[in-house]
């Protein structure tokens, strides 16, 4: 009788196994699969492919790069590639500042704009040769001055702040330099130092005249810019004018605008028959004695008439302002500058409207300003706050001059 097989033997006998050939082939395939390294698709850009250190490096590069760019933008001038970053940084600082800090920042930024405009003008002076001439590149040798002595003339104009010395040789373009010297001896010494010519020579060829007023850029011969540099200067002027339009302190704004006016009026373009700066492309317009800067919401107009400067800022309303205290429709102010008086007077005047529409609910603000220490006096002509429903809310306020103090007051309501 055959014995029954055991379960152990049956299970062992039926165990699935690979043949030696199959096993060898399988091993080869597994090893081959291991040796094939995975290659990332060149079209794949997946942030999850990066390792943590890659993230860290990326963040550092972005942070340091951005910080460096912002730092570098600090010295950028209008027209430079980084200047928009500089302006954006300033806007952020203004947005984060308190009201007290905001006014200080506005002044700081405007001062920076003036410095940048001056830097651009200085570059243009160098490019057009007027500065180098002044510094002695043209008149660099005393011998050349002495040789030209028959037609050489030094003219020193002593202003209340500076003394401007003009050097002219024959019919050539005069060159200027400025010194703080005010006495005759000091002025002569400064010319001697600058050009290295004998004192007697300077005394023989110099004319000194007291001007009894502060100097202006045009007194120094102004700035001649190249035709290629005109747009750059115009852009810097436009940027500055627009920032001035946003200046909340109207007194400072008007002072700044006056300074800007003086700067711009002294700029001439080389090769265009001594033509003034063209600012049309930048929405800044200068015609004869009038400078105008336009923005979508504002217009700044600086006009010079008979030695007086009138500055007008028009704020255009949104068309929805019905309130009489709506800030968007607030007033316009104007100033006049006179060089002959020693007082500044402000008083209310009757209104003159640019446009026919005029509502009855208007606030009039008049203010007075006296700067007794200045030889130049300024007359501020009343401003007015008015709410009107029209889109173009231009107003101009005029005032007659009268005596007053240096305080500013609001009075009067017009209806």
């Amino acid at each position, binding site marked *: 009788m055959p014995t*029954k*097989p*055991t*379960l*152990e033997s*049956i*299970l*062992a*006998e*039926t*165990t*699935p*196994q*690979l043949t030696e050939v*199959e*096993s060898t082939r*399988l*091993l080869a*395939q*597994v*090893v081959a*699969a*291991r040796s094939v390294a995975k290659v990332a698709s060149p079209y794949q850009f997946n942030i999850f492919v990066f390792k943590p250190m890659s993230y860290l490096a990326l963040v550092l590069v972005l942070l340091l790069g951005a910080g460096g760019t912002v730092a570098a933008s600090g010295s950028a001038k209008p027209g430079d590639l980084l200047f928009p970053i500089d302006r954006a940084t300033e806007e952020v600082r203004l947005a984060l500042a308190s009201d007290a800090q905001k006014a200080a920042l506005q002044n700081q930024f405007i001062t920076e704009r003036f410095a940048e405009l001056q830097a651009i003008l200085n570059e243009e002076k160098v490019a057009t040769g007027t500065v180098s001439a002044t510094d002695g590149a043209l008149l660099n040798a005393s011998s050349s001055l002495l040789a030209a002595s028959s037609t050489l003339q030094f003219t020193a104009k002593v202003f209340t702040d500076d003394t401007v010395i003009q050097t002219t040789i024959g019919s050539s373009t005069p060159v200027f330099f400025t010194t703080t010297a005010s006495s005759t001896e000091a002025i002569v010494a400064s010319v001697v130092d600058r050009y290295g010519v004998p004192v007697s020579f300077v005394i023989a060829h110099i004319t000194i005249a007291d001007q009894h007023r502060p100097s202006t850029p045009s007194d120094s011969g102004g700035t001649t810019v190249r035709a290629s540099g005109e747009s750059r200067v115009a852009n810097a002027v436009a940027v500055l004018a627009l920032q001035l339009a946003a200046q909340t302190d109207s007194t400072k704004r008007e002072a700044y605008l006056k300074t800007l006016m003086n700067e711009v009026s002294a700029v001439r373009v080389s090769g265009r028959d001594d033509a003034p700066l063209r600012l049309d492309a930048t929405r800044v317009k200068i015609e004869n004695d009038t400078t105008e800067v336009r923005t979508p919401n504002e217009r700044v107009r600086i006009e010079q008439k008979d030695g007086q400067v009138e500055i007008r800022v028009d704020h255009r309303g949104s068309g929805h302002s019905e309130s009489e205290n709506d800030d968007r429709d607030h007033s316009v102010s104007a100033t006049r500058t006179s060089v002959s008086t020693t007082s500044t007077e402000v008083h209310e005047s009757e209104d003159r409207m640019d446009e026919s529409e005029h509502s009855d609910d208007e606030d009039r603000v008049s203010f007075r300003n006296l700067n007794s220490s200045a030889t130049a006096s300024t007359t501020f002509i009343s401003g007015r706050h008015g709410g009107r429903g029209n889109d173009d809310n231009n107003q101009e306020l005029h005032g007659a001059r009268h005596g007053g103090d240096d305080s500013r007051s609001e009075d009067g309501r017009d209806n």
Partner: protein
Amino acid sequence: MPEHPLRTLITACSRLETDSFQQLYAIVQPKVFSYVSYRTNTREQAIDVTQDILIELNQSLPKFAYHSDAEFFGFVFTITRRVLARHYAHKHTKAARVQSDVELDEIAPVESESEMVLAVRQALEKLDTAERDIIVLHHWSRYTFGEIGAMVNMTEGAVRTKHHRARSKLAHLLDVTS
């Protein structure tokens, strides 16, 4: 304390040493293939699935921290179950029941087997899943009860008990002595 052979092999394989992998392959491949064979329809499928498992194991070895043999075989078994689940999900074989989970109730039918193999498969079908896995893993894949316990998340004693019952049942079904 002497270095464990399997630990040495696994460490060497992590460094992509081909000779070490051949030795590890000699240990793991029969265990994997025997289990996969009973879970697939044909020998070709079993070979393909085994190949996928071994490739995945080979790629995963550098991430595996060795603590014990049982843990390593549990690691292999986890890969096996995952690859089998993928195989069932993707192949959609008609003969085998298509399931995303490997918790099969029945043994995959085979196309052609010897009478004895067929008889064993039919007998295994009559066991419950846990008993069947223990029989296959112990007798075909040659795992110890401790290793099986680590694989199926049971104690060694529970595995022994189940194995004893399954063995008696299978012997009765096959009309053999246990």
